[in-house]
């Protein structure tokens, strides 16, 4: 995997960015209001990008779901409780994978990479009512990375390799 390019300087210092990144075949970037009203448009963007990568129907839906779960978590558990900001969605298509970076201005850390999961099977066996979203994210993606943008904000990087491609 190519090294991360220097973070682009915007109104918020970020850790990851696709700006100037080598080997990006196509990229998408949009900033949305951090509310539930934006979730469908975010899903549409993710679905459209994944479809352009000629991913299969299930893979497209898995990618769409993972992006939606991340954004919904931020809106519901941070923005609606501690003040809303925007959600920056950046998606890049590479020759062997699709990546999405979700950048928020949340006051709450969402260290998704260290949050405990139980697995989908335990969701049925233990009659759990919560936590399925995290299981879906882990199930749907090949790699998830997280950075906390001190003093406020998360960057979550979602990576899904195309079927049969090298990881």
């Amino acid at each position: 995997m190519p090294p991360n390019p220097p973070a682009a300087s915007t109104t918020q210092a970020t850790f990851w960015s696709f700006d100037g990144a080598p080997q990006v075949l196509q990229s998408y970037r949009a900033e949305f209001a951090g509310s539930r009203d934006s979730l469908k448009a975010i899903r549409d963007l993710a679905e459209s990008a994944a479809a352009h990568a000629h991913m299969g129907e299930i893979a497209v839906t898995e990618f769409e779901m993972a992006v939606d779960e991340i954004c919904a978590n931020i809106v519901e558990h941070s923005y609606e409780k501690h003040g809303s900001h925007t959600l920056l969605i950046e998606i890049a298509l590479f020759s062997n994978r699709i990546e999405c970076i979700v950048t928020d201005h949340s006051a709450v850390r969402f260290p998704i990479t260290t949050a405990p999961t139980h697995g989908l099977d335990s969701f049925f066996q233990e009659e759990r009512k919560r936590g399925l979203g995290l299981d879906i994210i882990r199930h749907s993606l090949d790699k998830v990375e997280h950075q906390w943008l001190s003093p406020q904000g998360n960057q979550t990087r979602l990576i899904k390799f195309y079927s049969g491609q090298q990881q």
Partner: protein
Amino acid sequence: MSTISDNELSVQSTTEVVADKEVQVLHCRGDVDTKTFDSFQAAMLQPLEQQHCHIIVDMSGVTYIHSTGYGLLLTVQRQAQAAGGKLVVAGFSSKVGSIFQLLGFDRVIPSFPTVEEALQSFR
């Protein structure tokens, strides 16, 4: 017939009688996501609140289901079973149905291609 509606999700409820059982059919149309979940939940809980424990969720008009929606299906199914009935789903599109199956929900919630076939399962 009753209707619960959100800007991007509507659920219409109808009643069918099969083998002396009153089966509530919930016809859903739109996306089940964080924005529309409250409406979806209200519609899903209504049959049990009205003492109906035989439920078919018609998903033929549904284009997306968030994790909380899947979780709610499971919760209502367990409550329906506890009341002596069951919940089944019908009419999934290939996109949504594939995810339903991939996540393993087909192991615990019966799924049928059409509402008509789902109704037969209550005989």
